[in-house]
């Protein structure tokens, strides 16, 4: 990937304008995005899109008063107006000594992925997917299939002599689908992934084919036999819905507010020792990663949960300054959950009575972690076998307890580009 210095020049010019307007500390990020998207709906290719976007993000701090602004026009008049507005915004704010910008770091250039999209290959992959689905799964309706080539060139600079240039181009693939047989309809399902090439047919990527097959089975569903407390196998497709409570409650908002149930749990056991979670934004295996955090630090990979022990909060520089705790070495995301030692088939085989959940449609858990929601595109498991697809089944429990109640993790993991996740089995779930 080549580096174009247009964004750097614009970022440096904007930074000078910020300094000249009187800010003590300032930062600027300029991004130039290209998006090329091919989309099919209801098995017909119907939209081809090319978007070009520029974004200038400005941050200024004066007398410990901070303001930020984002604009997408690059002419001098617009940038100068934005700097003037930013000055007034900061002057109107209240001082907070925790506001700061990233300290001096060596100038770096990062790049990855591909430079240009292959339109014909994009078209052929979408078309091939339509044909495959129509021939193998006649009940299936591919509601939408999209392949997007997305490229971003970016430059971050600040008044502490930080300059990071990045450039990444990748493909993002998404599909959504449901099945219908007469008047019987399955729940809709969706999945997606990103990658640097389109070498693999969509139906062979991640667990796409398994989900298509399950959708056609799910046109006819049954109620579970009755309310029970049992086990649940969480598919990689919805695992972040269940890990999200932990990951969301160790960030700035909850830790600064003091409302997180994990606020006193650093270096303590918060999950079963089977669970290890890393955040790996700088990993060639994860095309959805990043090299620079939003507040201008070079990102590094980190272990968040190591054998059940919480090793770090996900605090930004502001969050760290505000709480006196350590800043995280990245901004989270790009999560990798370590695989276990049990094959997926054996995980299912070990369940006496439970649920295989593939999509969770639930209300936001409260601050204590209590949750309930509908198990969509899911199965009732009885005596180690997937018995039948289920309907109108609510699962409920507590997210804090759920982490402690992990009883198995699959060997197999799926790489979605944005995360690498296994199947996880938990106990103590109420299904009704």
């Amino acid at each position, binding site marked *: 990937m080549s580096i174009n210095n247009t964004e750097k020049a614009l970022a440096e010019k904007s930074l000078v304008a910020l300094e000249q307007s009187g800010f003590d500390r300032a930062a600027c990020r300029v991004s130039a995005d290209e998006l090329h998207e091919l989309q099919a709906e209801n098995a017909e290719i119907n939209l081809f899109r090319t978007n070009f976007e520029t974004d200038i993000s400005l941050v200024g701090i004066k007398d410990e008063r901070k303001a930020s602004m984002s604009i*997408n026009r690059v002419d001098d008049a617009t940038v100068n107006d934005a700097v003037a507005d930013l000055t007034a915004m900061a002057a109107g704010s209240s001082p907070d000594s925790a506001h700061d910008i990233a300290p001096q770091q060596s100038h770096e250039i990062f790049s990855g992925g591909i430079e240009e999209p292959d339109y014909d290959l994009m078209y052929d992959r979408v078309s091939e997917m339509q044909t495959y689905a129509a021939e193998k799964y006649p009940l299936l309706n591919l509601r939408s299939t999209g392949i997007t080539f997305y490229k971003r060139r970016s430059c971050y600079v600040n008044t502490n002599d930080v300059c990071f240039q990045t450039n990444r181009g990748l493909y993002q693939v998404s599909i959504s689908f449901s099945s219908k047989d007469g008047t019987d309809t399955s729940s809709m399902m969706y999945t997606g992934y990103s990658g640097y090439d389109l070498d693999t047919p969509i139906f062979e990527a991640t667990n796409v084919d398994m989900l298509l097959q399950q959708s056609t089975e799910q046109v006819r569903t049954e109620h579970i036999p009755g309310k029970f407390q049992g086990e649940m196998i969480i598919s990689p497709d919805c695992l972040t819905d269940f890990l999200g409570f932990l990951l969301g409650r160790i960030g700035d908002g909850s830790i600064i507010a003091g409302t997180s149930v994990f606020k006193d749990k650093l270096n303590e056991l918060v999950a079963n020792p089977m669970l290890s979670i890393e955040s790996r934004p700088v990993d060639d295996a994860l095309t959805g990663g990043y090299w620079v955090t939003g507040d201008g630090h070079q990102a590094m990979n980190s272990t968040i949960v190591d054998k059940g022990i919480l090793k770090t909060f996900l605090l930004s520089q502001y969050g760290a300054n505000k709480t006196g705790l350590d800043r995280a070495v990245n901004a989270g995301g790009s999560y990798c959950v370590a695989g276990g030692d049990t094959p997926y088939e054996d995980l299912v085989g070990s369940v006496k009575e439970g649920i295989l959940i593939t999509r969770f*449609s639930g209300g936001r858990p409260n601050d204590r972690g209590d949750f309930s929601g509908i198990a969509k595109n899911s199965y009732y498991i009885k005596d180690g076998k997937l018995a039948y697809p289920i309907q109108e089944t609510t699962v*409920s429990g507590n997210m804090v307890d759920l982490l402690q109640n992990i009883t198995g993790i699959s060997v197999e993991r799926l790489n979605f580009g944005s995360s690498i996740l296994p199947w996880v089995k938990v106990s103590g779930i*109420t299904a009704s």
Partner: protein
Amino acid sequence: MQIAEIDLGKYSNRFSSYTELRLHENRSQSIVLLNGDVVSNARDTTGGVSARVFNGGTWGFSSNPDMSNDAIDGTISAATRNADFLARRCGNEDAALPLSNASADSDFSTKKTLKTQEEKIAFLTEIDNYIVSSFPDVVSRQVLLSCLDMEKKLQTSEGSNGHNVTTRSLIAVKLTTENEDKEPVELSEAIGARGQYEDVFESMDTIIPALDKLYAQLLDKKEAVQPISGYHDVILASDLAGILAHEAIGHTTEADIVRAGSVAADYLNKKVASDLITLVDFANTYEGETLPVPIYLDDEGVESLDAVIIEDGVLKSYMHNKDSAQHFGMPLTGNARAFSYTDEPLVRMRNTAILSGSSSLDEMIASIDEGYLLMRPTNGQADSTSEFMFGVQMGYEIKNGKLGKAISDTTISGVAFDMLNNVSMVSDEMVWSCAGMCGKKQPMPVGMGGPAVKTKVYIGGQ
């Protein structure tokens, strides 16, 4: 150059087939006070030009943040090339779209002098100070101002044109207390309306009653019991009726979802609900009042009309864009909207509401021996099966016709048409919400409204 100053009509000779040319700018502002500290003080202005071209049953789209003459020309050319590429690969020469030719201008910008950032932060600080001085049991508080103005100018090859500015301003307050086990208990409220900040937040007079009510319910919630999971008689309070209309029925009857396999495809002109239920997606006005998200011309240049979805319990129609109206052979409704200049218009709801009935809320509560009063929605989701769910952050037990203890956060669910068939009472009030942000592929502000409804739903819990 500002959007208002650009003449789009002069580009009409550049259109080689059906084309929509749109200038679009979103201007947003966010200020967040967390326990009194300003943790976010941000503005975002994002805009540009987009063109969408129809050729042989396929669409080409392109956008550019530059709104200069050359960029607009180039955007039309790029969208046309994209449509030509698809038409060559998979086009259908017989494909057509319904015609439309409409014009509408509207502007909901304030006519008052704009407040400075300092004045806005001072107002939020006043709210924060009121919470600190009046609510002793609050251990953490967040006050968030969120404003969004959307300006769009449209020209189509069929002659439709318009320049419309929609605005809304919200203050969201989240209060957290602790129960006797020192566990956090929180409750939140969004206060606001259509309009810019200066028109919506003129004084604390409209804020204080809402804060007092929020705190009183938070104290009730400190003592909350878990709801009993299962199928229950419930009253969905009027502030829940809007999300009920939106999630439970609205999405299921968006014509693109119907086309993709929604169960509503099998129910047109059939009885799907109690006679008490009439549900309408209003374009802009109800009983002479301008609604939270007033749309007069959609982003395909179609006049926005009210879409009567359910009338006296019978499913009467769907919400359409041009593609779906052509597919189903139905009239256009003007429901096509795009969130950003980089987005294509999709079928979106506008102001979706269940119409009010004749019962009082007290009568409805008195009619239930054992059940729940549910209020204050959080998030929600719908499905092609018409199965819906949404989160509820406040509610009370109903026992022997009287309100009992508060209940903790829960999720309610059901099959929309079953739930509507079970509606046995509808209240005589009509409450509109301006706080909705729908997440169907693109975010989109929506209005929602309705009365309290007595029905049966499934409640998650122990």
